[in-house]
């Protein structure tokens, strides 16, 4: 069986991190979300994968290439305008081929476990099958109203509570879906949505079914949700110190994994789960606490303290820094004594709406250049490519490309 992964959208709610890459490329446990998805498909022996890409597609193609390194055979197809999931799936038609009876569609920006994929395959019936999972809070999701396995209605972001079964955006379709997509009308929001195609099928008395999974399915709606997802996924981390070098006098507790040519210098104290990528230089005397992931080519200088954070590739953290509950984008550099304050139950404004974050330090976009003795007040974000002079306190969001003097 083949799979189509939808990976063309930006994921605006995860800005500033998605200003430079699509949401599918945001790292959780040091792997892009999309890599978790591909791994789960491959574990189910689904190796022919069609990636529908669009926004910042080069970053995706550079990472996955033709898929062989991930045990898959990846074909790329570009969705030039992001005008809906149904339109995206239609782009993949020529790669599915007419001999394939059915195929899977999965969102590239949700972490889905291998068992969830097999739940879908094993539970599939009828003309189309939706994979659902139960959530207490269904705001922000589409829900499924079903009678037994039979889907009666698909409702996007319901105002009142009608169901706890949310649509994971994972489907098993038959060949006929393409013709139905072509008949799907454009929605009021100007998109061709696959949920509208499903509703069309239900209205035409076709057999749309659903199957429930109780296994891992994670959605990072906002960038700070990445930290929660990171904690969950790092729960499965295994210790691996073979590829790098750990100097004498380093104390490692719990599960810690380090990549090739990475060195952990003397006096460092690391409590897992912590995963560190390739070519990193950590320490001496650095403290890293759970649940932290650090990308490739990152330097963390002495006496710094990092807790429950995601540090992306090519980052340089100078001495005496304190980073907690934060996400630091690629190619960020910070001067000495960089401090992120952490806060609880914060309200964070995104596009004029307030959203709550349980616990957060800061989110820093790619390419930010931050001086020494900078303090970022809890919940304030620094956008891409901004420069902050030494000694500043950041008490409001810093827009992209700005200079704080």
């Amino acid at each position, binding site marked *: 069986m083949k799979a189509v992964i939808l990976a063309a959208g930006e994921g605006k709610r995860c800005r500033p991190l998605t200003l430079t890459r699509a949401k599918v490329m945001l790292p959780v446990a040091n792997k892009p979300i999309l890599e978790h998805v591909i791994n789960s498909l491959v574990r189910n022996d689904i190796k022919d994968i069609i990636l529908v890409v669009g926004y910042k597609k080069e970053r995706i193609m550079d990472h996955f290439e033709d898929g062989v390194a991930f045990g898959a055979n990846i074909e790329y197809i570009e969705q030039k305008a992001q005008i809906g999931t149904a339109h995206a799936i239609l782009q993949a038609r020529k790669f599915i081929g007419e001999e394939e009876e059915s195929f899977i569609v999965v969102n590239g920006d949700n972490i889905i476990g291998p068992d969830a994929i097999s739940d879908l395959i094993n539970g599939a019936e009828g003309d189309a099958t939706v994979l659902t999972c139960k959530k207490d809070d269904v705001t922000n999701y589409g829900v499924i109203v079903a009678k037994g396995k039979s889907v009666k209605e698909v409702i996007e972001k319901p105002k009142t509570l009608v169901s706890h079964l949310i649509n994971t955006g994972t489907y098993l379709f038959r060949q006929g879906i393409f013709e139905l997509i072509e008949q799907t009308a454009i929605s009021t929001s100007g998109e061709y949505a696959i949920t509208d195609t499903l509703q069309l099928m239900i209205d035409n008395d076709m057999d749309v079914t659903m199957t429930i999974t109780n296994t891992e399915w994670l959605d990072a709606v906002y960038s700070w949700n990445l930290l929660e997802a990171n904690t969950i996924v790092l729960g499965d981390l295994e210790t691996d110190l073979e590829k790098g070098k750990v100097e004498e006098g380093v104390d490692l507790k719990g599960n810690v994994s380090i990549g090739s040519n990475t060195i952990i210098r003397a006096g460092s104290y690391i409590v897992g789960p912590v995963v560190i990528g390739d070519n990193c230089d950590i320490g001496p005397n650095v403290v890293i606490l759970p649940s932290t992931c650090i990308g490739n080519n990152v330097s963390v200088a002495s006496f710094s303290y990092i807790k429950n954070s995601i540090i992306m*590739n*090519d980052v340089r953290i100078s001495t005496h820094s304190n980073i907690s509950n934060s996400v630091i984008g690629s*190619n960020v550099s910070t001067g000495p004594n960089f401090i992120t304050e952490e806060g609880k139950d914060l309200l964070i404004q995104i596009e004029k709406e307030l959203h709550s974050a349980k616990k957060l330090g800061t989110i820093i976009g790619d390419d930010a250049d931050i001086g020494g003795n900078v303090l970022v007040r809890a919940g304030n974000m620094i956008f891409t490519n901004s420069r902050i002079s030494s000694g500043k306190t950041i008490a409001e969001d810093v827009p992209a490309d700005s200079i704080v003097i």
Partner: protein
Amino acid sequence: MCGIVAYIGDGQAIPVLIDSLKMLEYRGYDSAGVTIFNDTLETYKVAGRIKELEKVIPESVKGNVGIGHTRWATHGKPETRNAHPHLSSNISVVHNGIIENYLELKERLIGLGYEFQSDTDTEVIAHLLHFNMNQEGGRSLLEGLKETVKELNGSYAIGAMCNENADMIAFARKDSPLVIGIGKGNNYAASDVTAFLKHTKEVIFINDNEIGLLRPDSIEIYDMEGNSVSRDTETIEWDLEAAEKAGYEHFMLKEIHEQPTSIQNTFAGKLSELEGNVTLEELYLSKEEIKRLKRATIIACGTSWNAGILGKYLFEKLAGIHTDIETASEFRYSNPVLCGEELTIAITQSGETADTLAAVRSSTSYGCRSIAITNVVGSTITRESDSVLYTRAGPEIGVAATKTFTAQLIVLYMLAINLGRARGVISADEAKDLIVAIKRLPGQIQKVLSRKDTINECAVQFADKRDYFFIGRYLNFPVALEGALKLKEISYIHAEGYAAGELKHGPLALITDETPVVAIATKGHTYEKILSNIKEVKARNATVIAVADDDDTEIEKYVDVVIRVPSTHELLAPVLSSVALQLLSYYTALAKDCSIDKPRNLAKSVTVE
């Protein structure tokens, strides 16, 4: 360049040979052909692409043994009769290289009654092999080939088949690359491992003056005295898959985008920031030897030569070593004054560049120590140099060098820092600043790549111009040369790179309002100077495109278009500027609809002189 392939085993030979030939396409070719044993030797060849070759082979042709060839014309025009394989009654031969004494041999063979079908040097090998196999009561294919190559002057990698010994393929090598691939019940030979990497990663690199036989289950290798040579197999760690385009329209764009990763592979495990040093264990030079060095000579061709100019400036600035930069094809025929205490640094992506190899041989013959900077593990230069620094950029398929160029620059920075530290020319702190700047390059290159749309706009705007000038000073001079080379290679626009100070000594006469001038104007001690050069060309109404730092707030006042690169250490700016100019060339060629990955008349690795 020409490429040869051979297959013997239990599978169908044609698909394997065709596929292998396609993998050699990047070397550049104008004609192609195969010989297959289908009860008797059958040969098919065309002047044109491999696709056309596939069309002329009837589907009924089957066989488990065959040889194939892609030809890049040197002796004789690209015509079907000049395409390989070349035949002599029951014999078929493919060859990469040049036979210098072919005219003399040809006359002799004509005297013996042989008729020539082609203008090539290779055909003499076929007839000579036929002649030798029929001497002294008949020789075997292997014996015949041994006698034949003894009479050849020049370079060759040969694959040969004979109707009567169709269970084997004979091969021989001198000065042209040849590698054997070992499969299970299937064996392969080719000019380049990429040809059969899909089938096996176990290989044997054949040395000069070795000859042998390929059978389905065994490989035999002999020296010229007929002694059997036992050789260990090596495992290739490249993934062929990396050689596929993976969503990109062209290999070149894919390779440009690989640079954040490829340069990280180049410096991985070698930079020691805290100690302020670069570890190059594979250099095999003691601190005393490094201190004694008086002079270095960098030898290279093409893009590698441009990298070499930067190398010269770096060795002089960071290591205090007087350094010459030589074009390999000139060095050999000039009269280099060598006393044996020099360091020879040869830069060649493929490790097979004929002129560079010959230049290294001539310098080592004076007792000079040689360092090779190359991308290809096991290539000829790695066996002929005292030490090898690998660029580790992975296979590059696009004919225009991109990621291998920046990887060469990184190796040169690392070498210069290493030598400079050993000689006490730079302090640990200065070295640390450079190392930090190198480590920041992957993220900064990513930032340059994210500006592709702006660069594309600039490229489209000037794509219809006939001439382009690239100017730069000091470290930006090689950037200007490489920028011009890239542009002319793939977009066919006439482009010249100049040291900006040289403009008024002639080329200024060519500047009009129709010539865009790219000025590489990153910050540094020549910044003020390049500004005055910009004013010079502006006064001649030229449109000026500047490559400038993010930090530069002045430059807009002087130029028409600015391509921005992240600010870095002055010495490291050439890496970022080069990436920006690679994109400029790519998008210019794209706007002109040129054959980007295989420009006309060019070959990836030039294995002939």
